């Protein structure tokens, strides 16, 4: 435990330069107006999703046959659908579904992908080279949407299963990324020094290698959330994601497509929200990448 003490002393020593670095990074992020915009919109969407119950003027699943296919009005801001449900409320609840799907599926991918990538990259060897890497190659050569569709079909339709399917599909990306980072770091002096002084592999991986991979993981994870939202919406569009009557942007689009001539608002509002959400997260993710390393651009 002496080692930990030494480490903590060192950390306090370098605290100031680190703070300064953080400050310049935040300044750089602030200067990137598009990233700030993306971050603000993303935050607003998260806020909306969290407080959907209070923000939605109507019950998103309540059907009202006296108000079917109504155009946007003061009562129904985004109009109503073929069953008389309020599109505005459904879009708000849809944000909940989309963000949840994005976060949880990327979370699943991280939980599976990070350990595999760390161990595979650290120990190398036959299993890494011939099983794990070729397995990721194989998974990546099947289009993500196709694999997610097939997995969702296997697991059964529904949001939970869709999130698991998307998480599994995203996993090889993280395995690849982290393995690459580990390979770049495992030959560095501090890892060699750690090994020489008899620190266990486990704590070398956890304390020395993992912290160095955090930045690229963060960037990749942010961008993966946007991708996951698109895949979830696609699955829901095809009827394999969120099940009716629960609102999801993808299934709303599927319904709305049939009413493009008479009630285009059914499709246009959820579609626009998908676009806004995805572009905001992408802008924010790009901003974080430039903030962490302006050269990576």
């Amino acid at each position, binding site marked *: 435990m002496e080692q930990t003490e030494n480490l903590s002393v060192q950390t306090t020593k370098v605290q100031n330069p680190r703070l300064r670095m953080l400050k310049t990074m935040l300044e750089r992020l602030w200067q990137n107006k*598009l990233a700030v915009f993306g971050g603000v919109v993303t935050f607003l969407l998260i806020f909306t999703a969290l407080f959907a119950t209070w923000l939605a003027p109507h019950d998103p699943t309540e059907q009202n046959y006296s108000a079917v296919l109504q155009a946007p009005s003061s009562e129904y801001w985004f109009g109503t659908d073929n069953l008389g449900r309020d599109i505005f409320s459904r879009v708000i609840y849809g944000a909940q579904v989309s963000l949840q799907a994005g976060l949880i599926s990327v979370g699943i991918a991280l939980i599976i992908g990070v350990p595999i990538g760390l161990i595979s990259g650290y120990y190398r060897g036959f299993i890494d080279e*011939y099983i794990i890497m*070729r*397995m990721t*190659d*194989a*998974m*990546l*050569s*099947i*289009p*993500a*949407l*196709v*694999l997610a*569709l*097939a*997995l969702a*079909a*296997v697991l*059964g339709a529904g949001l939970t299963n869709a999130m698991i399917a998307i998480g599994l599909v995203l996993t090889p990306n993280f395995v690849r990324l982290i393995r690459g980072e580990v390979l770049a770091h495992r030959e560095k002096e501090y890892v060699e020094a750690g090994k020489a002084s008899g620190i266990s592999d486990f704590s070398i991986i956890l304390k020395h290698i993992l912290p160095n991979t955090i930045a690229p993981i963060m960037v990749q994870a942010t961008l993966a959330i*946007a991708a996951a939202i*698109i895949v979830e*919406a*696609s699955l829901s*569009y*095809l*009827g*394999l994601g969120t099940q009716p009557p629960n609102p999801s942007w*993808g299934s709303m*689009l599927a319904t*709305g*497509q049939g009413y*493009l*001539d008479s009630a*285009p608002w059914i*499709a*246009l509002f959820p*579609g626009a929200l*998908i*676009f806004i959400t*995805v*572009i905001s997260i*992408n*802008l924010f993710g790009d901003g974080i990448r430039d903030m962490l390393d302006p050269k990576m*651009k």
Partner: protein
Amino acid sequence: MLSFLLRRAGLMIVILFFVSIIVFSLVNVLPGDPALMILGQEATDESLEALREDMGLNDPLVMQYFAWVGDLLQGDFGQSFRDNTEVSSLLAEKIPITLQLTVMSFAIAVLIAIPAGVISATRKGTLWDSSATLFALSGVSLPPFWLGILLIFIFAVTLGWFPPSGYVPITENVAQSLWYMLLPAVALGVRLSAELTRMLRSSLLEVLGSDYIRTGYAKGLLERAVVYGHALRNSILPVITVSALQFAAFLGGTVITEEIFNIPGLGQLLVTSIQTRDFPVLQGAVMFMALAVILINFLTDVLYSILDPRIKLTGGSQ
């Protein structure tokens, strides 16, 4: 060159082996009894059991796997559960349709990306550059199904210029076929185009700053000749890599695009096979898509070496 090809071919076979394991295990944990599906609810237990025995469904999974792969290697993809048609003939019927969609999309993507990327890089900081950057930023965030619906709404429903959905075989009427396929191709192509524009811009900016570009000007070339004759070919290399990496996502996009525009291609076949639990068709379609992705990546490596004489295709590490 030969040793490179052999090495890459070996790698392709290994990856295909893993793909086959994924595809096989997917289908074999799917709920549902194929025998029941073929014979229907009225079938007797005896006839069901007989069919299971006949199809090898009672054999151990490993045996089933090798039997399946053995058939695949002979070009036998099995028969559809629905109407017993050969999966290979189904694929042969659908692939040209999806191929037409992907080729048109890719052409559109390149036709937009090259001028947009070039203008953006050579007129850096101007309104042109900002517009191209805006296009690239929003394009990568446009899912094809949303763009598809938007295009249908604007160009088919509101303006009435295009049919909202459907397909005409190219053998029947070339002009009609291209016309029907145009909106889907745009819906699918814009995202790739945005990605390519972004890549081309940054790679072109880097190349335009290099010494041999200055040499080009010094020998009396005009900007057009320098950009298209010297800079573009050098900056296209990373763009090709990106296109190849994007190909899997691109092919995935055909599935949903075909669904939206009701195009009876490979993607729609795949979705139907999932909905109806038609395993042999599902397996065949997924195997084919993976094969296409793997082949495209292989061809990209070869193309790369043709475009960049510095790269020697040897058996050495990549």
